[in-house]
């Protein structure tokens, strides 16, 4: 089955959506991402949607769900790279992307995540877990 790859970078998870998603792919991404957040104890999720030509209410809901579910698991979500035409359409459609932060591009998104979750402390992160 097709899946969108999720990359791990320190305590962040990166997803680049390169193709127009059909529903199953989007719902798979939602569950894969949430499981990855839990498994890797990621603190931040960055989703690049610059290749998406449209975001309809279904896709909007998936993005919102990812944001809310990650939040419950103590991770922040940033959606980056939205095309201006998509932003215009989303607002007219009446969809607010609740639960996710947005940034213009990957670089700004990473910056935002770094501010939100503080510095990456991967080397000493297991110090406080008693063995």
């Amino acid at each position, binding site marked *: 089955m097709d899946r969108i790859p999720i990359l791990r970078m320190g305590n962040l998870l990166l997803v680049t959506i390169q193709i*127009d*998603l*059909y*529903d*199953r792919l989007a719902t798979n991404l939602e569950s894969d991402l949430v499981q990855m957040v839990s498994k890797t104890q990621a603190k931040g999720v960055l989703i690049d949607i610059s290749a998406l*030509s*449209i*975001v*309809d*209410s*279904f896709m*909007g*809901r998936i993005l919102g769900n990812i944001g809310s579910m990650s939040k419950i698991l103590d991770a922040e979500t940033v959606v980056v790279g939205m*095309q*201006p*035409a*998509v932003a*215009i*359409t989303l607002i*007219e*459609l*009446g*969809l607010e992307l609740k639960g996710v932060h947005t940034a213009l591009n990957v670089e700004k998104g990473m910056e935002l995540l770094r501010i939100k979750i503080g510095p990456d402390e991967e080397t000493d992160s297991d110090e406080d877990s008693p063995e």
Partner: protein
Amino acid sequence: MKIVLSKDRMRIEREQDVVPFRARVKEMAVKIGMSLVNQTKLITAASELVRNMLKYAHGGIVVMEIISQGRDNGIRLVFQDHGPGIPDTQLAMKDGYSTGKSLGIGLPGAKRLVNEFDLKSKVGEGTTVSIIKWKNG
């Protein structure tokens, strides 16, 4: 008067049909030189309506036309299904109302994104939604 310049139809039966359908709509919009913002609005509206058709009526047929009125060209999409129909179309057009577990912005949202929107439904017979997006609308 609206003149039909070209006509095409597509059967929608599965969720996998949605992406190729959107691609077809985009192709038509590009062909008449529609701006990117209007293209995006049209395709998003079409996506909402085709999704409704799949969800509530297990699919149907979309008639896709390039039409002309005066100096303006546009795209007309007619979504026809033989699903259960909508008992209260006025209520269905209200923001936030949904009988499914969606956000309830599909129909009213789609209406906001296009220039003309017409919804006809008969309980037990089906629903027909017709939308038009003008190239410069």
